[in-house]
């Protein structure tokens, strides 16, 4: 289909597929998408031309095999703009927990023939291997974020990334602070906004699935968690969770007592 519309590709690396659902779960508005862009590659939805040059590539998932490295380099070459979406693509994802152990040792302890399965010793964010033009954090990212970014990029406007913490979203939505009123350990003060403060709105502490906010006072929140009764290991587990290898959380967790205890 020859068209003048901007071309879009959606690529998957190691992931749960949940971030691509930000598009597939659009519902009826999904049918409007082909009016906006020409979808040349989106294997989950059908179109399958991974090597065609495009204007924008959305990339989900982490890089975890030698073949992935070649593939992401190819994607980069073919894309004017490359947007990494979700915790896996922006920080290596939950599976990057293996980075804190020795991934090859884990493989060897699990597979009888680990040499048949080629993996890197780490689960990497896309930005470790190629230049990334825009990162959207979140596990999962949501439709509003992805569509908003696409519209900005297609209009030639620089997207304005979220910088505030979840606390700001609670204030905006009028959600009562779970940490102050219920003593729930909440990662909200150090976690990037974007989810809509889902967990505090549900009466539970935020568990940090949107990754670190721009400025985080991790020492202070770790101390507060201990005062609320979490032991050092439990505090560590709060940081070493969904976005464990995002720079802010990784650095924070490596400075915690639980890290050396364990």
């Amino acid at each position, binding site marked *: 289909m020859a068209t003048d519309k901007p071309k879009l590709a959606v690529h998957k690396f190691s992931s749960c597929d949940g971030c691509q659902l930000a598009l597939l779960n659009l519902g009826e508005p999904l*049918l409007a*998408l082909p009016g906006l862009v020409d979808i040349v590659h989106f294997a*989950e939805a059908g179109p399958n031309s991974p090597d065609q040059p495009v204007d924008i590539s959305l990339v989900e998932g982490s890089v975890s095999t030698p073949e992935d490295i070649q593939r992401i380099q190819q994607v980069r070459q073919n894309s004017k703009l490359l947007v990494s979406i979700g915790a896996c693509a922006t920080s290596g994802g939950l599976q990057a927990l293996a980075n804190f152990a020795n991934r090859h040792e884990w493989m060897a302890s699990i597979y009888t023939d680990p040499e048949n399965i080629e993996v890197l010793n780490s689960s990497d964010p896309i930005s470790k291997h190629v230049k990334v033009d825009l990162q959207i954090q979140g596990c*999962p990212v949501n439709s509003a974020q992805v569509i908003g970014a696409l519209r900005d990029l297609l209009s030639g406007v620089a997207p304005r990334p979220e910088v505030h913490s979840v606390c700001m979203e609670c204030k905006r939505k009028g959600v009562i602070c779970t940490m102050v009123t219920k003593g729930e350990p909440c990662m909200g003060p150090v976690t990037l906004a974007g989810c809509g403060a*889902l967990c505090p709105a549900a009466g539970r502490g935020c568990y940090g699935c949107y990754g670190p906010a721009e400025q985080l006072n991790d020492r202070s929140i770790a101390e507060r968690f201990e005062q609320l009764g979490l032991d050092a290991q439990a505090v560590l*587990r709060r940081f070493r969770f969904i976005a464990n290898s995002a720079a802010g959380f990784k650095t924070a967790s490596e400075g915690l007592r639980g890290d050396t205890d364990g």
Partner: protein
Amino acid sequence: MAEHRDIHINVPVLTRVEGEGALELDIVGGEIERLNLRIFEPPRLFEKFIEGYERNQVIDMVARICGICPVAYQMSAVQAFERLSGFTPDPWVQGMRRVMYCGEWIQSHALHVHLLAAPDFLGFESAIAMAADYPDAVRRGLQLQTLGNDLIAMFGGRSVHPVGVRVGGFYRAPDSSAVAMMVKRLQAALPEAEALIGWTAGLDFPDDDQSFISVALSDPDEYAIGQGRLISGQGLDIDICYFDSHFKEIQSPHSTALHCELEGRPYLTGPLARLNLNFHQLPAEVRRLMEGCGIRFPSHNMFHSIVARAIELYFAISEAIRLLQDYQSPAQSYREVEAVEGDAFGCTEAPRGILWHRYDVDDAGIVRYARIVPPTSQNQGRIEEDIALSLQKFGLDQTDEKLRLRAEQVIRNYDPCISCATHFLKLNVNRG
């Protein structure tokens, strides 16, 4: 012959089967000599890194195994932890978990029927392409998918990796006003779902009956979703904790993905297996639709699984209405459940089949060991067997392209996790 010996390697790790797939097919003298479905997803080592985390954290972690069926992962995990503590959730929690699970069945089945499977039957590359000729069908599918997603989000804030489920119940009960609005939407969708059954039943199905074993959960009181005993059409009837005595996970030499066998044989899990075994428990109105749709169930034609999905989708909507229409906010949405040391087992009916979990938990509620057997790996042996039989019946003299399309369609009947289900197949045919 040495290369044909069975190599059984027990691999205690979840190897997901999403991602790239390849089918190696050797046809010699008009016969299939070798057929290997190779599916490779880089191992994420999930079961290994769950070790050392708290029960409620594990519920949030396992959701991340699959973006399409996170509720199933959360429900199998929470069931395991509660069973271990001897805790039975109160009727409100049980009912609402079933409703939330219905939401996942609705969205997953709607996605599969419309976006993944129907384009095969109607000859389109994708649902987006199909929308030009079948706008109403595609729109109906997207509306039903949204309905299911919104039902999940009513309990969990969002439909992908929802945040509502915890040991002992839910973090928060939905507001009565939200439930009342949802009931109206569900009621409005019932006629759409009914039309969907007729629409799927009217598709053109290859005549391809095969002999296979169906496996599903069975609950004496209802069409099983979130709990039950494991049964088969061949007399198996066990508590889920005895899974390992009957089912064996093996690593086949040509694939990094695990296969699972029941007493040494491949088997089917998923909507068609459930319908085949439990159809007598469907409410009368759903049975009437099933019996009047023109396809006979139980069925051993895997192409009928798209109709089975449509029937289950209708059932899930009617079940959600039944459980929500007299909704009352509970005094408490959860109870504290004390951690108990031991082996925890959980098994529920994910949209694509039984999802079995086992955890070894310490007395502080920290997971020491985890094992997870997802439905797609259980179906993989059956998929290979089916491809061979289907292609033989289809005719091995067909062109490579036609063989590839037919093989893809057969694989999609099993609704394996989405990314490997869609136009993924690199077919290498070696003709001798």
